[in-house]
């Protein structure tokens, strides 16, 4: 598996650069993904989405579906894309340290 070192921290990631272990998530990971996603600054809006994703994941063991994310944070899908250019999955979930969903999706 690939390893990424950023600001003294080492992260194990999958082929798409998602964290392999949610427990390894830390603020440095956010900084790292922020740079690779081309996001200039983590705003309150970003934080609101990240917090919701992590809370949901801790409670349910999966990422929320997009409509649940939208309804709970109040951001329409278009706004999520404005905040996270790679979208809710490859952008926001990745930054929040959630694994990528597989199956009929």
């Amino acid at each position, binding site marked *: *598996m690939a390893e990424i070192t950023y600001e003294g921290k080492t992260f194990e990631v*999958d*082929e*798409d650069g998602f964290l392999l272990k949610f427990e390894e998530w830390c603020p440095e990971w956010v900084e790292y993904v922020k740079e690779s996603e081309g996001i200039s600054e983590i705003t309150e809006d970003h934080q609101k989405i990240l917090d919701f994703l992590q809370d949901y994941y801790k*409670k*349910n*063991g*999966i990422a929320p*579906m*997009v*409509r*649940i994310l939208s*309804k709970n944070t109040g951001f329409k899908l278009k706004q999520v894309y404005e905040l996270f250019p790679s979208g809710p999955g490859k952008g926001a979930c990745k930054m929040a340290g959630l694994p990528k*969903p*597989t*199956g*009929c*999706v």
Partner: protein
Amino acid sequence: MAKIPSPEELMQVSYDMPRENWMDTKPEITEGAVAYPAKKVTMEPLGMPNPHDWNPFEEDWHLPENWEEIIYNGLKERLEKYRSLKLFMDICVRCGACADKCHYFIGSGDPKNMPVLRAELLRSVYRKDFTTAGKILGKLAGARKLDKDVIKEWFYYFYQCTECRRCSLYCPYGIDTAEITMMARELLHELGLGLHWIMDPVSNCNRTGNHLGITPHAFKEIVEFLCEDIEEVTGISINPTFNEPGHEVLFITPSGDAFAEPGIYTFMGYLMLFEEIGLDYTLSTYASEGGNFGLFTSSSMMKKLNAKMYAEAERLGSKWILGGECGHMWRVINQYMSTMNGPAPSCMETPVSPITGTVFENAAETKMVHIAEFTADLIKHNKIRLDPSRNDHLNVTYHDSCNPARAMGLMDEPREVLKAACNNFYEMPENTIREQTFCCGAGSGLNTDEIMEIRMRGALPRGNALRHVQEKHGVNMMSCVCAIDRATLPPLADYWAPGVDVSGMHELVANALVMKGEKKRTMDLRQEELPGMEDE
């Protein structure tokens, strides 16, 4: 992730055949055509043999030391167990009727994607080890020695087959090519070689009951969330039961319908229909998956994952199972279930529609009815009211999902349902529909993004047919009855026929469904305004 060529670039497919003998060409493992390998941490807890981490782009795939013996014994065991495999290995006369029927061959021009040659990759090894002619005459008899390149070639090409069985339709001998692929994948799994996109869902399903790993409380919460959206659109409050014993019907659909768009709208459609007809049913948070990625793994895994549906029906005392819009689940149910896990529990009965009294004799053995049959029967008996004008802004076509069409012969029912729910229905060309339907290009567990190039190549024939009806009839919606389709057809349409949207069948049914006590519909299930029906 590999960059995907433009449709114009991708369409330049060369069908020139190489001069050298196919046995002398080495496999080239290219990016965009080979998916991520399954991880050791996924394979190990499932008890899969020889779990290890490896990389298809590296020279050494870290095969177990006795890998040749494993393949020999694995093939021997399967030849003894399945008379069909022995037959399929022996009877092919290489007539080539299947050669140009495969979507991957059409889209790639790679000769080893001709089904006859893909099967030959395995057949040549069979000849060498298990036939007298092959043992004596070797290459002259089409036999070749197994080496590590053969293993790589198998991995590359048997995961460029979606087990769609279109080629089988044209085989004069009726060779089930999908079963050859299934056997080759089983042998690869013996060596610890599998795909992440298949094994991760298998692992989830084994652990939580569904491919996505939705936990019971999350499943319940998701369905309740969908019910809130239904209320928003219709004004009707629905409260389905979960894991409740004593209901006549257990309803099971793919977990993709409970997670991803546009599948969730189809799930809402099921719930609305059941509410309207007063169906006595329950949902299970344990048997929360209709699909079965075990079909793409091994017969033992398929058997294990299939068993939970019947175990749950027995536990809850359900008389029969109503199955949602899933594709490969119906291949498992119709072709394998009764010899794997059958007979169904004795408490189950031959399904009878409680609304129309129709006896589903075709499901007497499996006790499982496809929802398209169920709804078509309701429509035929005038048991539901539909207002198709609500779908008038849609010009709809139907993509026959491979397995419901070719593995269970479900071809007329979906069309009857769609024509009742939509005024504007147009067929794609006849050699691309019904039993001749073309794959979405990513079935059998290949619906992962890193192989988007080969997916779009495989999607070319379906995309071309779709583009045709888009230009000719203004088609803007392609309906289907498979959750993999609902995930794979949107990128297909975006690439080959931009502007066409994708829906499940029951999304369109529910949009047209006139429900008792509903408020005036101004929105569809996606909460988009219905043209001509906006609030005044």
